[in-house]
């Protein structure tokens, strides 16, 4: 009974804490939204600078209803998925090889560093000349953006597996395969996952860049188009969707990452 009371007390405290958090969160919109609405309504803020929130919502609803938004987002998501899959897979292979073999690292590292040093954004014009402005361009640029952090974190993660663990494996006379399976991979998985998370973030940023520069569909294109037509509401809707997708994907991966990190900390003890 006392235990139950204690638990329910804890739940109430947690709920109250969440509510307070929500309350704080609502203060900013409670101040800015009225100013924004009144400002646009009275004409202090010209339509070309900031459309009223109602218009933005309206546009958002229209674009969802007509399926236009889903179509553009679909294009973007497909590109990111494909580019990320290719870049991350290649990154895992190259990064593992560099982490496991000093020799491979010697051969590959300088070229890799040179390629990584130039941001995806700067490669785009070159890639446009070589590949045209079709799907191939987008996939290659996104894959390159994902490739770099995956290689860096995978190679470092594998190469930095604590010597102490390897020694434990050596005392048990592990075969190389056993060493990989029981020592190296478990130790390297958290940093590898961190690399994948960065890779996805970079892929998403590269997608926006490449769609802004060379595309006739997708969320980035929506931005350019809205800009050309001076449709600020469309621009804002596209920004919101880009932000929300970026936020959600990062959140999901962050949760998985924390899980892995916790496991890693336990493992070290």
């Amino acid at each position, binding site marked *: 009974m006392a235990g139950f009371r204690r638990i329910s007390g804890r739940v109430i405290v947690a709920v109250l804490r969440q509510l307070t*958090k929500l309350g*704080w*969160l609502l*203060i*900013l919109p409670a101040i800015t939204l009225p100013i924004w609405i009144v400002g646009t309504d009275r004409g202090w803020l010209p339509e*070309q*600078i900031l459309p009223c929130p109602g218009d933005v919502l309206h546009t958002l609803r229209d674009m969802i209803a007509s399926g236009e938004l889903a179509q553009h987002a679909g294009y973007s998501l497909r590109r990111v998925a494909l580019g990320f899959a290719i870049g991350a897979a290649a990154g895992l292979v190259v990064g593992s090889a560099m982490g496991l073999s000093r*020799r491979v690292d*010697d*051969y*590959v*590292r*300088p*070229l890799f560093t*040179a390629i990584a*040093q*130039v*941001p995806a*954004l*700067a*490669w785009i*014009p*070159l890639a*446009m*000349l*070589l590949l045209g402005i079709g799907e191939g361009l987008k996939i290659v640029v996104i894959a390159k953006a994902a490739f770099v952090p995956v290689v860096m974190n995978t190679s470092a993660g594998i190469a930095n597996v604590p010597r102490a663990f390897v020694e434990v494996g050596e005392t048990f006379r592990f075969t190389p395969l056993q060493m990989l399976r029981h020592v190296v991979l478990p130790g390297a998985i958290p940093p590898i996952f961190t690399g994948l998370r960065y890779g996805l973030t970079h892929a*998403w*940023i590269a*997608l*926006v*860049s490449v769609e*802004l*520069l060379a595309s006739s569909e997708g969320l*980035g294109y929506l*931005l*350019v188009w*809205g*800009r050309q037509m*001076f449709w*600020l509401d469309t*621009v*804002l809707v*596209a*920004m919101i969707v*880009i*932000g*929300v997708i*970026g*936020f959600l994907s*990062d959140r999901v991966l962050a949760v998985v990452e924390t899980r892995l990190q916790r496991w890693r900390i336990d493992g070290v003890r």
Partner: protein
Amino acid sequence: MSGSAALGSLGRGLVLPVGLLLTWEVASHSGLVNRQFLPPLEHVGATAWRELASGELLEALAASLRRDLLGFVFGSGAGVLIGLLLGLSTIADRVVMTWFNGLKQIALLAWIPLISLWFGFDEMAKIVFIGLAAAIPVILNLVEGIHATSRKLVEVGDVFRFNRVQFILFVYLPAAMPSLLTGLHLALIYAWLATIGAEYFMAAGPGIGGLIIAGRERFEMDLVMLGILVVGSVGFLVDRGASWLEQRLIPWRAASAQV
């Protein structure tokens, strides 16, 4: 690692780049690949020399660096002020931080259309965009640094009855200094990236980004390659310079973890 081993690893490191350049050169001369796509190395070199001699390259680089620096100074300055406010004031933190975290999820380049609608295509718009790119990492790292100040050091301030100003000057600011420098380092990198982005999309006036875009439009592959080389080199130098400064500015960094 012994000297000869280091030399060996350096030699191995050269195999791929040199091989790649050789293949490029052979492919280009043999006519296997269209020269428009892969101009021979000496053409790229000649273009580089021509651009250098005419002063065009240096002019573009100077314009880009000027923008980069102005944007960085304004952006990181604003970032320090906002970061201090958010880091030191619980109320400001609670009211603003979650929204700020949401806002930063919008890929940076996605701000360009909006900024160009507000500020046009000229210098002002570019500097605002570069400033935005520089401010975000400064704010994030400064706030994190202040929040991570050891509770144990804060108690020492309590014991000596520090007032608010003394707490900021003698406890929070020095404790957050390594984080702040990390933020400024990132800001330098982001600002350079944003400079190129701004010049791509708001292509008015000289700049390295403009040079690359012009090269692409005129299908001058050698010009594009030259531009990419410059962008990469500047990025590399900025990064190295910042790391070097960071290490010198914080003599206690080695021990910042222990209390």
